[in-house]
């Protein structure tokens, strides 16, 4: 235990969540029969890990994974349902900045109050008051009420007080995401100092950049389970995988129940159906990077169309087109169409996009030239596809898209 700062052994935390919160005695009396009125929610399951002295230790996990519960247990705010928690050294008692700030008090009064929460008496606070105010760059505002501060000013003040805490172990929950660039750089400087001074820091963050930069080791928590505890790189990889998997599941359920798709055009042609096929020819929205894929679109015409141009746009977000396929640019003629014609358009080739989630928009226009065209039917962001595999970054240079059209 001598070289350990924190030892967590088989910690479990179960919250009893009342179905209908019994906050009145009447309902407590009515529900007096020993029926099950609570839902047990296990926030942490049998978690064990150790943090060595002087280590910068990260806890990462998706929202609701239990990492904040873990931090609150470490801070002593919650008590564990099961397991043993050993802390070797003095620990900061807070997990968030600006706890106990009162908007009705002035900045100065809040400094003293906050200092008291960290265990400093008035005399000690007076000694460090000037440094705190200087670091926060708030000299002119200290006699104003806190409610008149901007949120950035409040955080700066809170951070300057918090770093005075004389503790061996610091618990930090996402603080770098606040303040302007200048102040963030200052915060990073403080972290580097703390690290150099050999203090133990437990850091919870969603920013993998910060985690990669500071943490010596990380723990990955998901659904209350400790999945991994070890090197930062491996931990971040695992975290990214978890996130990717969750996003993939979400897009699949989104595609099943289509959202309100923006559709416009003059109606001379209509996209009747569309689907993606993977390298095995199976209909799916899960495609592999650098592997074969194809798109099939069925179109019916309700008027005369001289130069049908069919476009498939891939977007990283709903606004920006990343990559597109269009027969007009490929100089592939679909041929003149008249009312009642139906075609099936097929584009196939090698998926040029790297792994990720992409929006897909489909369009058909009547294009006389690149600048002169009329929109017949456009389905904006109609699908989301998942591209898997991490073989390369960015997009592949590709000129191997093959276009076909069959009249029906």
């Amino acid at each position, binding site marked *: 235990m001598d070289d350990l700062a924190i030892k967590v052994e088989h910690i479990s935390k179960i*919250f009893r969540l009342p179905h209908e919160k*019994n*906050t*009145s*005695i*009447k309902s*407590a009396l009515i529900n007096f029969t020993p029926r099950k009125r609570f839902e047990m929610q296990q926030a942490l399951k049998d978690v064990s890990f150790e943090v060595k002295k002087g280590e910068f230790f990260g806890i990462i996990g998706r929202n609701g994974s239990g990492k904040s519960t873990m931090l*609150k247990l470490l*801070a*002593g*705010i*919650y*008590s564990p349902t099961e397991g043993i928690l050993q802390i070797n050294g003095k620990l900061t*008692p*807070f*997990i*968030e900045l600006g*706890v*106990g700030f*009162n908007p*009705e*008090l002035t900045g100065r*009064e809040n400094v*003293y*109050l906050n*200092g*008291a*929460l960290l*265990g*400093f*008496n*008035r005399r000690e606070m007076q000694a460090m008051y000037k440094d705190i105010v200087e670091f926060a760059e708030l000299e002119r505002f200290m006699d104003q009420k806190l409610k008149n501060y901007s949120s950035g000013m409040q955080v700066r003040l809170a951070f300057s007080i918090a770093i005075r805490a004389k503790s061996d172990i610091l618990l930090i929950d996402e603080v770098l995401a606040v303040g302007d660039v200048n102040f963030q750089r200052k915060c990073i400087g403080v972290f580097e100092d703390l690290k150099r001074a050999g203090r133990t820091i437990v850091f919870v963050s969603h920013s993998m950049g910060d985690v990669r930069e500071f943490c010596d080791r990380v723990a990955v928590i998901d659904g209350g389970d400790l999945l991994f505890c070890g090197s930062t790189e491996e931990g971040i990889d695992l975290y990214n995988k978890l996130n990717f998997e969750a996003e993939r599941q979400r897009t699949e359920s989104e595609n099943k129940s289509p959202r309100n798709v923006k559709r416009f055009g003059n109606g001379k042609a209509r996209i009747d159906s569309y689907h993606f096929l993977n390298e095995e020819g199976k209909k799916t929205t899960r495609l592999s990077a650098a592997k074969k894929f194809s798109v099939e679109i069925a179109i019916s015409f309700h008027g005369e169309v001289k130069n049908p141009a069919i476009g498939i746009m891939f977007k990283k977000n709903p606004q920006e087109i990343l990559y597109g396929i269009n027969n007009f640019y490929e100089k592939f003629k679909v041929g003149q169409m008249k009312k009642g014609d139906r075609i099936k358009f097929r584009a196939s080739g090698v998926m040029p996009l790297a792994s990720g989630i992409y929006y897909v928009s489909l369009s058909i226009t009547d294009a006389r030239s690149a600048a002169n065209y009329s929109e017949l039917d456009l389905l904006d962001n109609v699908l989301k596809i998942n591209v898997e595999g991490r073989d390369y970054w960015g997009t592949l240079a590709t000129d191997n898209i093959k276009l076909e059209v069959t009249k029906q």
Partner: protein
Amino acid sequence: MRYFTKQNRALLAELVRTDFKLRYQGSVLGYAWSLLRPLLLFAILYVVFVKIFPLGKGVPHYPVYLLLGIVIWNFFMEMTTRSTTAIVERGDLIRKIRIPRWLIVLSSSLSALINLLLNLLVVVVFLIFNHVDLLRTTLWLPLILLEVYMFALGLSHFLAAAYVKYRDVSYIWEVIMQAAFYLTPILYPLSKVKDVAFQKLIMLNPMAQTIQDARYAAVTHSGSKTIYQVFNGGWYEYIPFLIVLVVFVFGLVYFRKESKYFAENI
């Protein structure tokens, strides 16, 4: 385990200070209200119960006698009602920082105690104005007030912890305090209660016992019937002290047990 460490004392002082700063914030007269309130209250009581309904005929120095009772009762009421919501109101602290939970209840009790001392200053002024002789028994007053404080502290801890789980605690307590106000000889002298059995029953309440004792000790020996005089000896007269002790211990134990789960229950 050490309770009054340097850190805890600093925090307690800061919490009490904040409480006082916020209490009269936005008012023109500020801290003056701490003294003005009891003064104005006394003016009303004087007009109603001395001039209009002379309830205390025959009681020497009845106006001061009345004021002392009111002041002690108000302290008891203020402390318990404010403490009831103390933990929930400081929910942001409880959920995000590890501080001893009892400090929060203690700080709200100290605010009430400071108010009591200010009010007692007013009482002293009226003792002088009414030409009340200084009684040697006045030395007992701190002990009597300590008993009230312990009683209120035990109740405060219990109420604060129970309120986290059941929000109706505050309403129930309000009703209890209203009933207790009339069942305690505050406005009327105990001698106005004709039935001796009833007198005995009333005096079992620690608040009745302490208020009567305080009046006996500081205002008048002849007008304030104490529990000793009502029971004329016998072990019954110790019941109020026993109640105070039980409430004090139970309140603290209950609070300690519940405080582990404050952060998740608020």
